């Protein structure tokens, strides 16, 4: 099975402010690996560093043994890294369908693209109603659907997902977690960043906790669920 | 030897960037040539140096550089301005700072006639000289129904005014006139209108770039009417840019062909020898003359602005490559304008042309 992503000791900074401080994580093939951490811990920065949008000052990224560090973002995508960025990041002046088509930019087979498009519309019927609406005018939740749909259009070996549940209604949050699990079942490794700890750990196999740009805890979902520190920080007062 | 001679500075001002830079650079080169020739002459008392300045053909820039050269006490006099608007704007500056100047290219009458400043001289004639020659020439050829196309700068407007005045004294008539802006590219609307009016002749008052555009678009639109221009179109690039289409365009210019000037052969020869990459352009000889006049005055009375001015004021029958120069009471040197026709890719003096000899015919003849 493929989709084994490893970061080794990566560090990165915005100007003088170092946000990643030697982060090493492994996303195992076929598994869902999650990254937890408070606001501003550096989760998004880690995702950006993996995809190549944030230059690293140290360390390396490998996918199935291929070093990615020297590649530009689009080349990393070509190697099989997919991404649902934080805050959706749709192309606001494009229609829903065009957004989805951009997701399939690297695919050549027109029939396959059409097939995937149909599948996305099946998963999100609301998008099927709105094929020609500008993505920028959609409601917050609808945009999330487009963003996940867009990521589904390519066939990555590993999918990086940054806070997909942000702003989604409870039912849709559940759906999206179910969708993520389905994607995973279809053989795509997943690296998931979330605030919604309980539901995340429910579907994840393995997790990392990041704080101040460093990995401070790691373990299987159960281990993390039973960690006292984690409970205090994330589950709130019950 | 040159080292022991005192250095005297003379300013040159003209448009060296922008649309009129060809004329400006030609003028600068010609003035430079005059200075070089003088410096090479062992008999001269001083070592001359030309200080060239760019007025961009804009009055405000002109005022700036005029102030700059006028307030530089080491400069005794100036060879100034090709563009009339700039020349008009700067006369007060020269007067205020008492810098004698000789205009080498601007032809609006008011530059010398619009004031009483003793500092301002002009060697290249005025628009009036041209208009007179041109009107009698064209009406003499039998063109009675005129349309004038003029640019909306003071140059084109000035011509329009004087043409109107002169035509009123003849039995010809200006049936319509069109103002066009100096950077206009397309004239189909004006030309189709003219096509509808059917005049006998289209007279253009403006500079070469515009003159070329209008002539070539007349051809495209099938406006088959005789075309005439003022001195502004009379440059080598007019016939170059139009090729065969230029054939038969008539024009009148204050400058006679350099070769036909008394000292013209010498000028052409020396200009070629000096190795300038750009041509002298028709007004080049006048820049040469202006610089020479100033240097002659300096030779006579030394580098003193006031004395140089007085000598210049009194210029009478002074020999030059453009013939004898005489300043009138407004320090203006009138020029007998020469008539030209474009023939086989060259501007030819009308009298020497195949048209005058009847071998070829202008349109409507």
């Amino acid at each position: 099975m493929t989709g084994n992503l490893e970061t080794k000791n990566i560090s990165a900074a915005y100007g003088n402010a170092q946000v990643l401080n030697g982060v090493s994580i492994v996303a195992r093939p076929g598994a869902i690996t999650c990254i937890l951490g408070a606001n501003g811990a550096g989760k998004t920065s880690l995702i950006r560093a993996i995809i190549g949008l944030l230059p690293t000052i140290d360390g390396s990224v490998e996918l199935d043994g291929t070093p990615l560090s020297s590649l530009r973002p689009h080349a990393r995508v070509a190697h099989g890294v997919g991404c649902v960025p934080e805050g959706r990041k749709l192309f606001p002046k494009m229609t829903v369908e065009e957004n989805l088509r951009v997701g399939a930019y690297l695919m050549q087979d027109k029939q396959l693209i059409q097939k995937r498009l149909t599948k996305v519309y099946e998963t999100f019927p609301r998008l099927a109603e709105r094929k020609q609406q500008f993505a920028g005018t959609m409601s917050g939740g609808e945009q999330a659907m487009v963003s996940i749909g867009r990521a589904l259009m390519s066939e990555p070996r590993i999918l990086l997902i940054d806070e997909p549940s942000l702003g989604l209604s409870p039912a849709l949050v559940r759906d999206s977690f179910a969708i993520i699990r389905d994607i995973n079942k279809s053989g795509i490794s997943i690296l998931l960043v979330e605030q919604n700890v309980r539901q995340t750990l429910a579907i994840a196999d393995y997790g990392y906790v990041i704080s101040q740009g460093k990995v401070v805890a790691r373990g299987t979902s159960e281990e993390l669920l039973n960690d006292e520190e984690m409970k205090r920080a994330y589950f709130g007062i019950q | 030897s040159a080292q022991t001679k005192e250095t005297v500075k003379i300013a040159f001002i003209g448009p060296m960037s922008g649309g009129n830079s060809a004329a400006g650079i030609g003028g600068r080169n010609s003035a430079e040539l005059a200075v070089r020739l003088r410096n090479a002459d062992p008999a001269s008392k001083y070592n001359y140096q030309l200080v060239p300045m760019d007025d961009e053909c804009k009055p405000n820039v002109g005022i700036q550089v005029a102030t700059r050269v006028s307030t530089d006490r080491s400069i005794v006099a100036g060879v100034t301005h090709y563009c009339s608007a700039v020349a008009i704007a700067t006369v007060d500056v020269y007067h205020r700072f008492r810098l004698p100047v000789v205009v080498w290219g601007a032809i609006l009458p008011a530059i010398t006639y619009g004031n009483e400043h003793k500092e301002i001289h002009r060697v290249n004639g005025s628009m009036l000289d041209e208009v007179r020659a041109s009107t009698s020439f064209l009406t003499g050829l039998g063109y009675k129904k005129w349309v004038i196309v003029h640019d909306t700068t003071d140059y084109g407007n000035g011509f329009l005014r004087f043409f109107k005045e002169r035509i009123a004294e003849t039995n010809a008539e200006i049936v319509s006139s069109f103002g066009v802006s100096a950077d206009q590219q397309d004239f189909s609307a004006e030309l189709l209108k003219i096509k509808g009016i059917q005049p006998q002749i289209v007279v253009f008052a403006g500079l070469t770039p515009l003159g070329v555009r209008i002539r070539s678009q007349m051809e495209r639109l099938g406006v088959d009417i005789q075309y005439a221009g003022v001195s502004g179109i009379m440059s080598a690039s007019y016939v170059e840019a139009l090729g065969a289409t230029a054939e038969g365009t008539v024009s009148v210019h204050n400058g006679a062909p350099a070769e036909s000037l008394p000292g013209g052969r010498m000028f052409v020869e020396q200009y070629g020898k000096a190795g300038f990459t750009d041509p002298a352009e028709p007004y080049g000889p006048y820049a040469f003359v202006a610089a020479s006049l100033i240097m002659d005055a300096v030779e006579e009375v030394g580098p003193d602005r006031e004395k140089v001015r007085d000598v210049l004021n009194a210029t009478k029958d002074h020999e030059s490559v453009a013939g004898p120069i005489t300043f009138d009471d407004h320090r203006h040197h009138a020029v007998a304008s020469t008539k030209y026709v474009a023939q086989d890719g060259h501007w030819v003096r009308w009298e020497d042309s195949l048209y005058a000899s009847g071998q070829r015919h202008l349109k409507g003849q």
Partner: protein
Amino acid sequence: MKLTNLTTSFAVAAIGTLLTGVILVAENQWAVIGALLAAAALSIVLARLKIGMVLASVLNESSAWVALLIPLGGVIIGFALHEEDFVLMMLATVLIYGLACVGLTIQFGYAGVINFAGAAFFGIGGYTAALLGEWGIPSLLIIVAGGMVAAAIGCILILPVLRTKGHYAALITIAFGLLFRSFLEVNHTLGGPQGLKVEGASVAGHSLLDGIQLGSFQASFYLNYVLLALGVFTICFILARNLEKSWIGVNFDAVREDPIGASVFGVNVAYWRIMAFVIGNFVIGLAGAIFAMMQNFIAPSNFTFSDSLIMLSIIVLGGLGNLWAILPAAILVVVMPEKLQEIGEFRILVFAVLVVLVLRFRPSGLFPRALRKFRREVAQ
């Protein structure tokens, strides 16, 4: 803290005065290039050490009197070079363009209202001065009238501008600038392409066109204009500075940054846009009137689209919204082409390349605007 602020401000003023003086008098091409290189090196060092930002905030947070360093420096240069007509004329031109740029800063730097017709409003001020000059009206009144007419005509233009935004608004001002110029050119009642002569300014019956003569002290008449421009510039500078550090300044910024967000918090977006445009045009009109009086002559070709661009380049090169940056940038943009006369026909090319390089490597200008902080006001 107080002392360092004071010494820093004085040091800045001293260095600025010195550099300005040197650039103004430098005749020799190498001296000019040397001064340019020194200024470039200085700006790189400032950027490297991040001192630029610190300086900007020091100047921004000092009390209003620091603005008086400008007339101080100006007067020092003016009197030191009192016989150099040309140099003084350049200095006055710099101040006048600087004044117009204060207006543009209020419009574009503060409220974000783009104005590509700066030269047109400058011209309106100038033509007003030309027309009123014939009537023997006191010069100071004429200058104010120049500002008022520019502001009034701006009021008409702002209406279409308000309905649009971004590049659409830019087009409206570009179109106005172009039509203003072509109108002047074809319309003969205002002198046509040949332009108009303008009466020089006179103060208390004294024509500013006469040189100054006090005992043995003899100065060029351009010193008069330097002092006049310096006076008006300083007043407008201080007022603009107060404007920036006021609730109105806060509103301008909000309107520029996010008009929709601002409107939800009660900000009258249209009103502030109009205000900025009108105040700005008033200041530009003042500058135009003084300019016309000093030059004694104006013509349509003084007020072209490229002149508007020159004004905009000044505020952008200096650092958008930073009043202090206007003068160094104006010196660069106004004096440099003049000093580069020796390279003749290449100077426009050189100038264009220079601007491109600055924009490319210092996109926020040579001296970016400092954050507004009300520290001083709060501390009092």
